[in-house]
């Protein structure tokens, strides 16, 4: 069981090394000619004003909450799908009830306008 994941560990170590080496190359070989205007935020030539990070629309927050709700439910489907053939019809009924709860949640969010983007 552990042996299945050790090779992935090896790959992760090598991938991290690669991902660190690449920007280091740019750091070593790239020129550094400092001009104050270069370090200003790029706004298509306009002079930047005000803070760069501002208040964000609450819509994004709503999407994140809905995502957590439904993604947790999606995760439950996977182990169920693996053992489904052994369990048969009772598992189908149980998952049908579970999916019904998911659908009710989705319909509620939909009717409440949580999915609208205006």
């Amino acid at each position: 069981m552990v042996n299945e994941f050790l090779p992935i560990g090896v790959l992760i170590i090598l991938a991290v090394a690669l991902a660190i080496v690449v920007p280091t190359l740019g750091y070593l070989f790239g020129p550094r000619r400092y001009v104050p205007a270069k370090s200003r935020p790029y706004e298509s030539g306009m002079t930047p004003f005000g803070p760069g990070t501002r208040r964000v629309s609450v819509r994004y927050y709503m999407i994140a909450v809905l995502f957590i709700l439904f993604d947790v439910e999606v995760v439950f489907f996977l182990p169920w799908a693996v053992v489904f053939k052994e369990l048969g019809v009772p598992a189908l009924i149980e998952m049908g009830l579970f999916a019904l709860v998911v659908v009710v949640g989705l319909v509620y969010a939909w009717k409440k306008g949580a999915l609208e983007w205006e």
Partner: protein
Amino acid sequence: MEPGVILEWVIKSVVILISMTAGFAYTTWYERKVLAKMQVRIGPNRAGPFALLQPVADGIKLIFKEELVPAEADKLIFNLAPVITVIPALIVTAVVPWGGVLDINGFKLSLALTDTNLAILYIMTVTSISVYGITLAGWSSNNKYAMLGGLRATAQMISYELALGLSLVGPVLVAGTMSLGKIVEMQQGGWFILFQPVAAIIYFIAIIAEVNRAPFDMPEAEQELTAGYHTEYSGMKFALFFMAEYAKMVAVSMIGATVFLGGYLGPFLDIAPWLGPVWLWVKVAVLLFVFIWIRATSPRIRYDRLMAFGWKILFPLALANVLVTAVVVAFMGGK
């Protein structure tokens, strides 16, 4: 555990990393060539025969470019974000088998780094990590466009991740396992795209949104957000974001080919098992062509419609597909 086994893992990991980076480099070349043909242009044709050295030239140019860091950026996160984005793209294909077992003079060489029974779960876990890199990149740049691009990318990716996850449940139901090696073996009777056509279509639409490609490339909509979350990045750090995008394209194509298109299966595999990787990469090239084709053909869709499409059409459809598949599997006794 013998040192030979560890050496085998290291060699296979290096092969995966090289093929992902080379895949990234030559996908850019492939894309530029195909787009040029579709738009009746010549495209790159200077560096080497068929411009095959163009990606190398681009890479060398980027190494010698100046890297800018905005004055008010969060330096640590700003430098870390491209690294966080690229690592998942490089490691996600670890569980994909490239072929069966080769027999070289009595030495059994399995053409897969690992065959875990949690492969699908691993893929979903790893792909969701790259969302963090993009959010952090947008947030740490201290640039209005970058932040908007990062937020949009995050919202879009997490919305389509639901449909993506559910579209993979269908094949798992049919196969009864999450191991990609076993899923491929089960497709000897027929590719899963035949039994799960709806799931395959949902998977393909969702991955286009997941890797932020046209027509779902809202996060980097040039006309309104300059370059989205990587506006402030230059030099090799920009190259890392670019690499993440294209390596992810290759990776999701490879996973799609494995789950729906029979993976390494193809003609003559029984007499020449080394053809496995060839068939796999041929399928990846076909899927990448479809990506580029879609980019050349369809205009970008509006952001609110994009989100509505994900939540109101794709997600319920994926859910319905799972339930219908379950009913069929339960009463037909499974294929």
